[in-house]
């Protein structure tokens, strides 16, 4: 398996998308002038999520809700329970304040859509088929851990008056109507309603250019992640190690769940990737809103500057190797 993994990693590292990511990292480290406009970042995000959701919806319309239901529930449950062991680990192993432990737990139970997309791209590159409806797992896995994390954090802080206290309603609104979840769910439904006939009409936009757009987007994400690298010193060795070891464990766990949910090697890989990935957009936004006392350096930097690059470059092929080993 070791040579398999090394082989898989180097294939991954030499794909256009991952090379562009590396280029972005280097640009950030060399303090190059290169900077994407905010509008381009938002545009690429909207495009990637809409394309992913629409394709996923079409796949659901073909496979049937019944097929998707079980693994989707498994994915959701996995997302919701991951914070439950991260919290004590960070509280007592990492000696983090309760609110910080809760915030980090929310991030690692939630998911990174970009990591997921990079993984589908990897599978396409090595001609490994996967269930296109796996997008549904991505969609349902973003929010549960965030809600669990916020509840853990609020419990630890006790009742709070004023703007930052109060009910869970705001968290739920944010979790369910935030940009990425809304776009994914909405386009999943649109795709499911249109089916194949609809796909034929938008394919040259949403399918053909997808891999190239991803490469461009990863260039930007390399810049964004690279700029955070200097914050690593504020994070400490425990959290840096955490940000690599936990994804490996969760990747393995995700693969096991995927296998028992009856997915193919490709789909199982994706379940591993989802479990291993950590949020760095939706979760931080929810934390600033609902747990503003948590320290962003402790949750955003590990997730964005360690786990994300690790998964994109090395993690994905490892989870694939796990899946091949377990499933076939």
């Amino acid at each position: 398996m070791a040579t398999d993994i090394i082989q898989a990693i180097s294939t991954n590292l030499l794909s256009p998308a991952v090379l562009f990511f590396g280029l972005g990292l280097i640009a950030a480290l060399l303090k190059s002038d290169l900077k994407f406009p905010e509008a381009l970042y938002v545009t690429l995000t909207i495009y990637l999520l809409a394309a992913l959701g629409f394709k996923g919806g079409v796949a659901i319309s073909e496979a049937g809700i019944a097929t998707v239901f079980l693994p989707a529930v498994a994915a959701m449950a996995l997302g919701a329970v991951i914070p439950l062991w991260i919290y004590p680990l960070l509280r007592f192993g990492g000696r983090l304040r309760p609110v910080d432990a809760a915030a980090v737990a929310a991030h690692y139970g939630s998911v990174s859509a970009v990591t997921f997309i990079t993984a589908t791209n990897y599978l396409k590159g090595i001609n490994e088929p996967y269930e296109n409806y796996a997008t549904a797992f991505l969609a349902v896995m973003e929010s549960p851990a965030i809600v669990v994390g916020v509840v853990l954090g609020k419990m630890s802080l006790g009742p709070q008056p004023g703007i930052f206290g109060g009910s869970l309603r705001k968290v739920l609104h944010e979790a369910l109507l935030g940009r990425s979840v809304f776009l994914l769910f909405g386009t999943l439904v649109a795709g499911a309603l249109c089916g194949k006939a609809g796909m034929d009409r938008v394919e040259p936009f949403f399918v053909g250019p997808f891999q190239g757009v991803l490469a461009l987007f990863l260039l930007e994400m390399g810049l964004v992640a690279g700029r955070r690298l200097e914050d690593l010193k504020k994070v400490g060795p425990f959290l840096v190690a955490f940000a690599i070891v936990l994804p490996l464990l969760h990747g393995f766990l995700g693969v096991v769940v995927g296998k028992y949910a009856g997915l193919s090697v490709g789909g199982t890989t994706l379940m591993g990737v989802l479990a291993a990935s950590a949020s760095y957009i939706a979760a931080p936004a929810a934390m600033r809103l609902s747990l503003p006392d948590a320290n962003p350096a402790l949750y955003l930097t590990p997730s964005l500057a360690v786990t994300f690059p690790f998964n994109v470059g090395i993690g994905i092929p490892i989870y694939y190797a796990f899946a091949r080993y377990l499933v076939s």
Partner: protein
Amino acid sequence: MTTHAVKLVTIICEALARKPLQQLLDEVGAHGYILFTVEGDGRQGRRTADIREFANIQVEVIVAPAVAEQLLLRLEREFFPKFAMVAHESDVRVLRRDKF
């Protein structure tokens, strides 16, 4: 033409503080505001404004002096400990006092 003395309160902060800040403006009784994205540098490092969620925003709000005082007080107490934030107040004159 008569002008009226009011206060312009300017708040620079991380974009993710936006929603609670809007709630605060409502609570102290501000009747409007403007908001835009800015790049910035400060004690907590450079913000390049390339990702909407990690950018800085500048919020400007014209209010009566008593409201300004209330707003700054609550910013200091409730927001400064939690967010990267700078706030300043200055004197401006407007034409229609009743709007603010």
